[in-house]
């Protein structure tokens, strides 16, 4: 019971804070919308997509990049909510959190679930605006994508937590953009199918196939069309466990970020 009280409070706090930060919400929506409404519009002429699963017919480029943009929203959210813990004013609240007598793995999991809840709100808001612009998914897809988004959100949030606990150099968001967000995003199936990437370079194709972000995108893509992608699910789940394990290790009081942060 105390565990659930703790989880509920951490989610409630994160939601209240998010509601208060209107700028963050707007930024979270504008970013994918720029890609969808400007980039995709310009790019559709340059990129001819053949029929590829899970799509039953030929699709427009806008439809293709929606799952990648959903995952991008979650990637940004994961990075923002975790890294702000360590490098921003939030260091104080992290102290408060970690001095709670709850087990540390549970506190980090609560934080992760809370961040993921916010990312779900952001993704659904994005999907609603996309729908308003006529970029529609099958109606069941909006429901079926929920568990997929939950899993991908947890995985990407766990990646943020793991990074915040271990990597010392990522002191600002620009560093994270250059070394994490951009490579993950561009080396994935968010913007182009794996086959096209593999055609231009076998190495890049392989990197794409290994990238956990690719699996998150494919998980969402298939779920939006009511299909279950076991491979993507298994990879996303596995990387979630790995990243979360890494974060718990990194936040161990005997090592990792706190020691460096609290040092002279």
């Amino acid at each position: 019971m105390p565990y659930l009280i703790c989880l509920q409070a951490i989610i409630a706090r994160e939601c209240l804070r998010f509601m208060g930060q209107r700028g963050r919400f707007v930024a979270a929506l504008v970013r994918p919308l720029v890609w969808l409404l400007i980039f995709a519009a310009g790019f559709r002429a340059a990129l001819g997509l053949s029929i590829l699963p899970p799509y039953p017919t030929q699709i427009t480029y806008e439809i293709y990049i929606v799952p990648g943009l959903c995952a991008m929203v979650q990637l940004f959210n994961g990075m923002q909510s975790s890294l702000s813990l360590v490098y921003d004013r939030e260091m104080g609240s992290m102290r408060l959190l970690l001095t709670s007598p709850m087990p540390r793995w549970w506190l980090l999991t609560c934080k992760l679930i809370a961040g993921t809840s916010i990312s779900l709100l952001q993704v659904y808001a994005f999907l609603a605006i996309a729908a308003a612009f006529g970029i529609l998914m099958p109606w069941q897809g909006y429901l079926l994508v929920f568990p997929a988004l939950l899993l991908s959100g947890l995985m990407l949030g766990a990646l943020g937590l793991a990074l915040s606990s271990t990597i010392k150099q990522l002191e600002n968001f620009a560093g994270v953009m250059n070394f994490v967000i951009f490579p993950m995003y561009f080396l994935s199936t968010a913007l182009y199918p794996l086959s096209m990437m593999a055609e231009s370079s076998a190495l890049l194709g392989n990197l794409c196939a290994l990238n956990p972000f690719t699996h998150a995108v494919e998980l969402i893509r298939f779920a939006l069309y009511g299909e279950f992608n076991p491979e993507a699910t298994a990879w996303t789940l596995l990387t979630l466990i790995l990243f979360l394990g890494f974060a718990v290790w990194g936040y161990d009081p005997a090592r990792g970020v706190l020691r460096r942060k609290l040092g002279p």
Partner: protein
Amino acid sequence: MVTKLNDAALSIEKVTFRFGAKLALDQVSFSLRAGQFCALLGPNGAGKSTLFNLLTRLIVSQEGGLSIAGYDLAKAPRAALSRVGAVFQEQTLDLDLSAQRNLTYFAALHGLSGPKARRRIDEALERLGIADRASEKVRTLNGGHRRRLEIARSLIHEPAVMLLDEPTVGLDAASRRAIIEHVHALCADKSLTVLWATHLVDEVEAQDRLVILHRGKLLADGIAEEIAAGHTLTERFLSLTASELEEALA
């Protein structure tokens, strides 16, 4: 099953801590009994904050032992932490949430909710004289009230030991005095053990237990007026820290 080690409310035994090559704490030992107020006095960089980080288990000691209310912090960290109320040097309140919400959040981190949490929150706010500000956003409160709120927060789970790391930094003289008095009263009324870190000699009262820390070493431990030994405490503190410095340079 978690077993108690000893009866001291707070026990620090031969604690040594290094940040890389830098020795932050060197064989520091002292213990406090229940209901004792102890000022931990030391200039900046003395190792006070490191000791607080160890006592709140944000980091763990490499050598030596720490126990809180009889629970070993290394062997029974959760039992020990549930008996600690901490007020950190840096602000740890959520400015955009109300005072009440900040406290509710903290109560939940300790597994408290519902009427029990509400009652404890009301009591703590009342105790610190800020009950009328409960619904205000923390951002609208002044520095003194924010500190009082943090002290109120640290009482909600009814800790045995309260740790305050330079809690009066940035406050005006009247707010400082009010907070010192509040904490002394808590010590007396609730039999709460208090470790109060400061670099300001005037925050130490003649009858307080006093531990002086300098460059990671314990220089003095006793009752403040006995340590002062007929001088003012400021003179004594400066001479102690200066002679240690001379020894180090010699």
